[in-house]
């Protein structure tokens, strides 16, 4: 396939970044809307630079290899720093855009209380170490070689970054939400979560629709670059992405209708994005009925997952990022093992991949972010949270002409 084809699909990925930025901003309250969009831009900038300078070396295709019981075990990339002479510049572009997308996910869970400077430091460490490590395992390292080394199907399959981008980003979102704690007024003294609706459902839905383009780019470019798929498989990836997203939105719409009596806009948008996340794992390898099942299940799962995270884990995640990206991503990775037509052992390969990502990435993310939080406190002080991050950190609101800020925290 000509080299401009994956390049073209890579150029669609920024739509996913814009889409997530808009969703995050729309699900914030007005007082922190500009801060949210600026945070998206700053985090993406810091991540791109950190990955270009350090991360690309750790994600380079040729890695450090150790021998375990006679099998090669590639555990970390070993390329030159500063991305000098990248062997495949399109892969580098794909990974640069992927890391810019992945750092948007923690911004959603830390909304309205995460300081701008701290989120930039966190994004830098994420792009320099955590993302490259997992991206190497999945696309070049030992997880991709599970098929050749251990006879497990085609090895761990993750064409569009459901594991490398979404689950890793979602794990960071969970860690950030834990470290920051809930927003003031989110939980009553009895521990019951209260509703804090976002300020603009229109841009939430617009962002979700825009994200479709980005996910088409992720699925198609990943299929070509990492799995060398031919044209029909790439076309299948695009069709499956659209079909799964549609199924996810309808699944969430109907589920919220049954569960709450009325359809919920933000949860339906979450269902759409969760389905995009889920299908990105194996979009080129699924048939249309399987894509419908993956999307529909993602749309249903996300409604219950958002409630579980909020009510049971008592985590304040304003945009539902933990449920959408972590749980949606894991479901998509498992679905590849269930549906993809490969030799035996594919399901086990997917299980091993999920286990390694969760079991190694979560402790590392927790340790790194706890250390940063110690030296550069993540959470804004009470005045900043009450005033809103726009005024407190930027000096001007997103909607200065018609918005008046008032004290709307109730004593609970």
């Amino acid at each position, binding site marked *: 396939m000509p080299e401009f084809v994956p390049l073209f699909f890579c150029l669609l990925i920024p739509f996913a970044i814009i889409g997530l930025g808009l969703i995050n901003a729309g699900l914030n309250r007005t007082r922190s809307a500009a801060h949210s969009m600026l945070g998206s831009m700053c985090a993406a900038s810091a991540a791109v630079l950190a990955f270009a300078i350090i991360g690309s070396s750790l994600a380079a295709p040729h890695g450090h290899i150790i021998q375990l019981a006679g099998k090669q075990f590639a555990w970390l990339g070993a390329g030159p720093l500063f991305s000098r002479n990248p062997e495949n510049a399109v892969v580098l572009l794909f990974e640069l855009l992927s890391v810019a997308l992945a750092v948007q996910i923690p911004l959603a869970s830390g909304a309205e209380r995460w300081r701008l400077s701290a989120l930039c430091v966190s994004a830098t460490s994420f792009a320099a170490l955590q993302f490259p490590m997992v991206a190497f395992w999945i696309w070049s390292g030992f997880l991709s070689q599970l098929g050749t080394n251990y006879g497990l199907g085609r090895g761990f399959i993750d064409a569009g970054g459901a594991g490398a981008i979404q689950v890793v980003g979602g794990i960071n979102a969970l860690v950030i939400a834990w470290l920051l704690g809930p927003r003031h007024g989110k939980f009553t*003294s009895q521990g019951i979560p209260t509703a804090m609706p976002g300020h603009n459902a229109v841009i939430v839905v617009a962002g979700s629709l825009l994200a479709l383009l980005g996910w088409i780019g992720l699925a198609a470019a990943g299929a070509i670059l990492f799995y060398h798929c031919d044209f029909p498989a790439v076309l299948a990836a695009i069709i499956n992405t659209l079909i799964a997203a549609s199924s996810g939105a309808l699944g969430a719409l109907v589920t919220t209708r049954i569960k709450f009596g009325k359809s919920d806009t933000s949860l339906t948008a979450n269902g759409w994005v969760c389905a995009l996340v889920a299908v990105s794992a194996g979009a080129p390898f699924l048939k249309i009925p399987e894509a419908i099942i993956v999307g529909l299940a993602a749309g249903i799962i996300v409604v219950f997952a958002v409630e579980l995270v909020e009510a049971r884990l008592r985590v304040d995640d304003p945009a539902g990022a933990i449920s959408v990206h972590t749980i949606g991503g894991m479901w998509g990775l498992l679905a590849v093992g269930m549906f993809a037509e490969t030799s035996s052992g594919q399901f*086990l390969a997917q*299980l091993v991949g999920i*286990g390694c990502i*969760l*079991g*190694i990435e979560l402790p590392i993310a927790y340790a790194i972010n706890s250390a940063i939080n110690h030296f550069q406190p993540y959470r804004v002080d009470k005045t900043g949270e009450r005033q809103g991050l726009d005024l407190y950190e930027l000096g001007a609101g997103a909607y200065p002409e018609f918005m008046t800020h008032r004290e709307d925290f109730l004593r609970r």
Partner: protein
Amino acid sequence: MLSGSVIMLSSLTLLPGLPSRTAFCLAALAVQTLGFILLARSNIKVRKKPDA
């Protein structure tokens, strides 16, 4: 959670057949789930206050 990953990778390397590897990997996932539950419980920052 780390020990779950170690069990998983060890079972792949040391065990021969697919059924035994699957069984050990599921056990490793159970260990990881337990680790996650403990971590999640230690991070619940909103405590329920008893009714007055």
